[in-house]
């Protein structure tokens, strides 16, 4: 598996660290209650198919990436900088 880092280009999977579903970027506000935080920290959609996930290019440029990957085939359809995704989320809210 190779990931096309927007800064470094196509790199081996071993250069990256996996963090989990990119839903982690949507951090709830403090004080939103136990259920919201339980949902954010523990519960997952866990689809067999396309999933947006966070990968850290720790042996490369150090960027956090949002990688859209099919969990059945490991086919990667999109890679974006997490900073851009987070900024877009902020612009929406």
């Amino acid at each position, binding site marked *: *598996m190779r990931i096309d880092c927007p800064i470094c280009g196509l790199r*081996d*999977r*071993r250069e990256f660290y*996996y*963090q*989990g*579903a990119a839903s982690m970027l949507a951090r709830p506000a403090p004080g939103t209650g*136990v*259920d919201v935080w*339980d*949902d954010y*920290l*523990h*519960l*997952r*959609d*866990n*689809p*067999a198919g396309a*999933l947006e*996930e966070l990968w850290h290019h720790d042996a490369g440029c150090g960027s956090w990436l949002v990688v859209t990957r099919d*969990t*059945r*085939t*490991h086919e990667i359809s999109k890679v974006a900088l997490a900073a851009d995704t987070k900024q877009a989320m902020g612009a929406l809210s």
Partner: protein
Amino acid sequence: MRFSGLRVLREGLTGNKGWTPHWRDPEPKAEYDAIIIGGGGHGLSTAYYLAKKHGLTNIAVLEKGYLGGGNVGRNTTIVRANYGMEGNSQFYSHSLKLWEGLEQDLNYNAMMSQRGVLMLCHSDGQRDAFARRGNMMAAQGDDAELLSAQSVRQMLPYLDFENTRFPIYGGLLHRRGGTARHDAVAWGYARGADQRGVDLIQQCEVTGIDIENGVVKGVQTTRGAIRAKKVGVVVAGRSSQVAAMAGMRLPIESHVLQAFVTEGLKPVIDHVISFGMGHFYISQSDKGGLVFGGDLDFYSSYAARGNMPMMEHVMEAGMTLMPMIGKAKVLRSWGGIMDMTPDGSPIIDKTETKGLFINCGWCYGGFKAVPGSGDAFAHLMATGEHHTAAAAYRLDRFRIGAGLMDEEATGSQHNLH
């Protein structure tokens, strides 16, 4: 049909023509008292104990593929109870006791082999942790022996003791642990359940769960709707998708774990050995193949196959521990899809839907749990009460902050396991 030495002898002398199928192939009925979704080790053992211990025989096991075609057929066959951790330790102790009587109970040769499980330690701290673990195991009535480096050297002279990075300081030996024939465990439970009237229905995929006013009414399948008062979901690897049919989100990510087997060799490894620093474990099958595995792939996956980087990592760990295996040829590798929970421990619980039960989150350790899991889940489904051995396996434990750290002790975050 019962198995006996005399029967095996007679069949051997008469061309083995008298053996009959081990279970029926029934059509699904319109309604059952209980349905188990998932015909793997845990589902089949649940059905068996529901019928045997609780007299619930109007039940069906629904399997989308074939019986035992999932993770019970894709593991490294290790059986052990060497946790020493509150909540998990009691459960695996209970499960090992069931393993010890399993073949007599099922009248089925599961090739249960208590050859001993040896966990190696490679630092003073790890040795202290093993001493503590061994004490807890002994205190609850299980067996544990702390071995010095010298004892391990006498027992397993072929290990690389002088390794500069991970020298071997000793080990924790659990003699009652060992291996069992994985397929035979599924077949034995299937046969036992079938003999007690359980319908084992293969090629029957559940496509929906019928719920009315918060009460489960039955399931939709590729072979029509089936009504039931109780439904148990035991579909490791696919738990999230089946739970989603009931509107639930689970604290689970699905990951792949690889295992490997070499060509058949002469007997060389007598035990199950685990390498504490590399998360590598190895045993030798009765057929002669070295069976070994290591870490999971560390990213969500439903591809029932592994990846090369982890394969390389496992081979490196094996070569570090026992350089002698370097010339063995790897015949094949396989991957199983596992439910990874945030704390690495399983879930056996009721759900918010009345009559709907869930048994999931076995992470990388589901095989040794097969008897205990079935027993505890059957107890819960039949009586509505949690089995004492599995009382800690609650669905809400993350929300209330009562997570059970597993033996990897890597923290309450999904991707750390």
